[in-house]
């Protein structure tokens, strides 16, 4: 999550869910937490019952809003205006936490004199190459004074930037020039003041469609509940990320939390609520094209990555923790290529594929739609209904030569060739499809990484039925077959595959918890894989205790350095550790949190520069002068014995470049970045842009939408012009508690289907009356990409907004339906478009324009047969008296 990475150092939730109950004020924005994460929401409810103020700022009055002390409706996609307004309020009214901001952020740092702010340039920064949709760093000069304008490790636009190198940036001088008085016009603090000067309360109200009072009350509540004695937390989810300005929205939240001094402190921080069981894990150990495990950059042709030496020279960040990159990279290569990875051959660096273009999901599927892709492996994902512009995705699937679908049920992405709104003709679709039934998580061992970076192991309970197999089994067996197919090859290009270490077979038949033996042949031993991820010494094959033990000389192997320490010794799988500590609220022995089991990141900031707690009430970590080390309830996210008094110089390198009062150890200057001299492609400071499709002009700047937003041209992916009178209504999508994503894990489940059996759209009584739409009746929603139908949920929860003096209607569209399953319905994602944030290629599903009318679009699909009961089989080995009451006798 670059929004967080650029500001603080690591792209992940900075705290843990349980800590929310320590907050004095929680702002939930861009998240429908009560519905999407009900169990995480329990801690918000606890905070509420402890007297904390809970606020929900959201376009849609959801079950979350109903639980809050305050609900503020806003127009979707105007979050930066709202947060910018809060930043302005904090600075204007001098409500910022002085000691904290001065010591822990780059507020005092002086920026290159050539820098020109969006303030002067009508909403863009200098160096914009409009046609190339990028900023030319050499001109832009966002960097600190005394630094080269173009930082060495900032990539070309084509590569998404999730790697630490990219996020952290690079400084020649870890102690940049500063003005502690904050008076210098080129110091970050002054630039910030100027940049947000125009984000006035009345403007915010005008843009967002809320009232000034509502806005001010939120701003004031945050200020009143921050400081030494109190802390506020911010919770967000894809309501923020799914925008062309997603990364900058999160950056803005970061600025608010830094100015209020809420980072790295109990009850504070930014809680990113992620949507999938292991979505954090799939970024840490990425099934992503631009990074290698542990946020190591994927070698790229646009950079000087010819040899390992060149690569490291360019990607290493010499000050701060990322100076260790060589150890992590070499250990990864050893983990992958084993013996074959030698000093002489750059540890097999040459075998690692280079990226020469943007291969992220959206462009990849666009290329697929253009017939440029032969094959697709689909692991538990459903682009035919769930991806932005699902219609275009369905077309793409039809252009494939072959498709492998691994899932539990016959989802849309497996049945698109004979079902769906386009009523496809199988005879015209060439795609060769393999449906390989998958094992459920109850039928396999493995670890998930949850939204708070916590690795938790799940044990295999039973064997999967029939042909069902784990994805691990599939990849492991496919790898074995491919190695066999290439066995004879002498070609250079095949050596990587042939040298790939690939022995994960169980040493003996796996025993299941009930004592019986597994009947699955060829299932890999997941703990062998975990050991490789954790790291081991090459010679003895001994588990390493943590990433501090990794070496760059090829003597250690490690599949993912940030997870190192999860399996420190044989028989001690810490992801599998399930001890709850009644004394310690962080429960250090429940699972394993990366990095190195730190539950709250940047927790050095919970103490003041001298290392004393900011207050007794908010005590968390502090410097124990007697013991000469950092102590507290958590593992310090800091060198445990580095005294607060330690000072770095411009000559210091590595961790020595991090002073004793610099809590953000990943950052090259050890400080959190209010102003991002590098790391974000679309500007150093969050700036309000309208969504790509918007019925409203940008009321702050001449620049309408993000000049860098990625647009993908295709007939099926047309966008409405800004303020197109054809599409005056703003649409946003969201999740319901009762369903999950596009439905693969909920619409085949009768117990969930009966709770929300039909696709519906929520609209205001006012709009319904205007368009003659009746509650419970059918309605059509259409825009440039598609027309879909839904039942109308006319409710007072939805209200029209007054934006720019005009009445504006928003409708809410749950995105859970599709054409496969027990309940079927139109797909919200047929309406969403392929446009993306320039930093990470995240699409903009949360804001688009459309129009509505009463009626239907026509023949809907037929649902699969409703199966009222999951099973009527009685529980085995169970007497009559103990059978479930629903089936008793």
């Amino acid at each position, binding site marked *: 999550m670059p929004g967080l990475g650029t500001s603080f150092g690591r792209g992940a939730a900075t705290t843990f869910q349980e800590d929310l109950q320590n907050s004095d004020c929680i702002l939930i924005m861009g998240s429908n937490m009560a519905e999407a994460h009900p169990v995480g929401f329990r801690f918000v409810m606890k905070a509420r019952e402890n007297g904390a103020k809970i606020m929900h700022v959201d376009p849609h009055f959801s079950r979350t809003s109903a639980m809050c002390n305050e609900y503020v409706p806003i127009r979707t996609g105007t979050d930066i205006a709202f947060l910018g307004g809060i930043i302005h309020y904090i600075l204007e009214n001098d409500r910022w936490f002085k000691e904290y901001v001065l010591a822990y952020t780059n507020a005092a740092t002086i920026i290159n004199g050539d820098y020109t702010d969006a303030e002067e340039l009508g909403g863009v920064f200098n160096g914009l190459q409009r046609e190339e949709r990028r900023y030319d760093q050499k001109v832009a000069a966002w960097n600190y004074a005394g630094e080269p304008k173009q930082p060495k490790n900032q990539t070309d636009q084509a590569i998404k930037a999730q790697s630490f190198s990219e996020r952290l940036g690079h400084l020649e001088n870890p102690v940049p020039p500063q003005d502690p008085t904050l008076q210098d016009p080129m110091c970050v603090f002054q630039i910030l003041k100027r940049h947000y000067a125009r984000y006035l309360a009345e403007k915010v109200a005008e843009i967002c469609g809320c009232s000034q009072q509502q806005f001010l009350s939120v701003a004031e509540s945050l200020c009143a509940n921050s400081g030494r004695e109190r802390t506020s937390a911010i919770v967000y989810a894809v309501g923020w990320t799914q925008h062309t300005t997603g990364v900058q929205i999160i950056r803005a939240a970061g600025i608010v939390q830094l100015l209020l001094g809420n980072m790295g402190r109990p009850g504070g921080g930014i809680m990113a609520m992620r949507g999938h069981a292991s979505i954090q894990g799939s970024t840490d150990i990425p099934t992503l094209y631009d990074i290698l495990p542990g946020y190591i950059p994927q070698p790229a042709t646009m950079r000087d990555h010819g040899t390992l030496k060149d690569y490291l020279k360019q990607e290493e960040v010499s000050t701060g923790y990322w100076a260790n990159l060589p150890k992590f990279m070499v250990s990864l290569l050893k983990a992958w290529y084993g013996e074959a990875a030698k000093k002489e051959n750059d540890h097999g660096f040459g075998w690692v594929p280079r990226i020469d273009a943007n291969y992220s999901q959206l462009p990849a599927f666009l290329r697929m739609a253009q017939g440029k892709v032969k094959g697709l492996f689909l692991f538990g994902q459903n682009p035919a209904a769930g991806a932005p512009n699902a219609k275009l995705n369905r077309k793409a699937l039809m252009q494939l030569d072959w498709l492998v679908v691994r899932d539990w049920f016959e989802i849309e992405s497996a049945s698109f060739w004979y079902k769906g709104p386009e009523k496809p003709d199988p005879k015209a679709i060439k795609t060769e499809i393999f449906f390989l039934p998958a094992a459920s998580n109850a039928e396999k061992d493995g670890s998930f990484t949850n939204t708070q970076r916590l690795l938790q192991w799940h044990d295999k309970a039973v064997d999967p039925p029939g042909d069902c197999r784990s994805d691990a089994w599939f990849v492991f067996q496919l790898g074995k077959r491919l190695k066999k197919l290439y066995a004879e090859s002498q070609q250079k290009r095949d050596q990587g595959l042939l040298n790939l270490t690939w022995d994960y077979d169980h040493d003996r038949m796996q025993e299941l918890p009930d004592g019986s033996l597994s009947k699955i042949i060829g299932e890999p031993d997941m703990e062998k894989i975990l050991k490789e991820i954790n790291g081991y010494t090459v010679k003895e094959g001994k588990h390493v205790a943590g990433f501090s033990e990794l070496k760059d000389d090829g003597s250690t192997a490690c599949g993912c350095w940030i997870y190192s320490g999860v399996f420190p010794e044989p028989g001690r799988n810490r992801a599998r550790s399930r001890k709850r500590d009644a004394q310690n609220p962080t429960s250090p022995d429940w699972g394993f949190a990366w990095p190195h089991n730190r539950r709250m990141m940047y927790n050095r900031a919970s103490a003041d520069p001298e290392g004393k707690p900011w207050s007794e009430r908010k005590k968390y970590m502090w410097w124990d002068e007697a013991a000469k080390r950092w102590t507290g309830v958590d593992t310090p996210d800091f060198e445990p014995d580095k005294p607060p008094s330690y000072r770095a110089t411009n000559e210091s390198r590595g961790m020595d470049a991090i002073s004793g009062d610099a809590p953000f150890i990943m950052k090259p200057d050890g400080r959190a970045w209010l102003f991002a001299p590098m790391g974000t492609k679309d500007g150093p400071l969050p700036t309000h842009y309208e969504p790509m499709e918007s019925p409203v002009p940008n009321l702050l700047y001449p620049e309408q939408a993000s000049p860098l937003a990625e647009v993908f041209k295709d007939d099926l992916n047309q966008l409405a012009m800004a303020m197109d009178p054809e599409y005056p209504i703003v649409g946003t999508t969201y999740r319901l508690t009762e369903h999950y994503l596009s439905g693969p894990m909920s619409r085949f489940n009768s117990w969930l289907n009966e709770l929300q059996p039909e696709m519906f759209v929520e609209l205001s*009584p006012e709009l319904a009356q205007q368009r003659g739409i009746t*509650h419970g009746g059918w309605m059509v929603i259409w825009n440039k990409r598609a027309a879909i139908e839904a039942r109308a*949920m*006319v*409710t*007072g929860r939805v209200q029209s907004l007054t934006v720019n003096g005009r009445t504006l209607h928003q409708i809410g569209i749950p995105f859970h339906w599709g054409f496969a399953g027990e309940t079927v319905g139109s797909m919200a994602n047929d309406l969403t478009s392929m446009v993306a944030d320039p930093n990470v290629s995240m699409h903009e599903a949360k804001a688009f324009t459309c129009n509505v009318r009463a009626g239907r679009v026509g023949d809907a699909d037929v649902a699969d047969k409703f199966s009222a009961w999951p099973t009527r089989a009685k529980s085995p080995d169970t007497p009559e008296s103990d059978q479930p009451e629903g089936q008793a006798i």
Partner: protein
Amino acid sequence: MAESPTTTYYDIPLLKRPLWRWEIAWYFFLEGISSGTYLLGVIAELLDRERNQELVQAARYASIAAILPCPPLLIADLGRPERFAHMLRVFKPSSPMNFGAWALTAYSGPVALLAGSQMAADKSRLLPSQVRSVLKHVPERLTGVAGVPAALAMMAYPGVLLSTTSIPVWSRTRVLGALFACSSFSAAAAVLSFVLHYRDADDRLLRKLRKVELLASGAEGVALAGYLLTSGGGAKPLISGRYAKHVFIGAVVGGILLPALIGGKGKRRGLFAAALTIAGSFALKWAVVHAGRDSADDAAGSHEAALPNESATGWKSKYRVSGT
């Protein structure tokens, strides 16, 4: 609008529909005739066996004939017919249905014995001679008297069973039991009068029976008025609902008024009046049993029937509810 009306919750019924249908309506009708005729038969026998010979004989046959279909009807009504015997698993006066099950059991003996001995006396071919010779020795008066409590119970419990529920149309009143009892009695009297008219019985007996008929119908009328009045809003389904015609045309006009006007003047009119009374009684029981479903479906009505009063105070009273 997805908002709920203030008085109810989206007008969704508060109560579940009673499951009882035609089986129960028929059961209440028949067992009423059976117990009624039984009582009249025993009374007549005790008064004057010789003179009331025809009446006694008709009563004994009518009471057995009417009771025979009852067990099958009851069993058919169950969700688990094979478990009908579970009714006798406990003795539980708090449950009118359990009470009724025991009453029926206790009643079945005497009614069968009297009918048997009557058949024996009438040399009925239906019984093998040995059985007849045994039945000759049944102590008729004693048996008859022994069956009276059970017969009274059979007559009294059906209405009470219905009113011991939460269905407004049944439970707001205390006189539904009495109404059913009266209705049963008049139907029983009418059955006997029908038979005796048919068999051209002795006029004096018919005239006496006619008085009993009028008395019972009168009582039925009074009870019905009392029932409707004491039921308040609960009686809606019977007064304005689709069963109003059963009650007013069927029971009141057809079952009470007409017979009173036309009866007692010759065989044909006698038969007709008796038939009308029987039909009226059936219409009444059919209507009351089936109105239970409409009553349960009426959400607002059910809530209205559950508003606080001095004997049922509810729980809201304890705290003041401000707003909405």
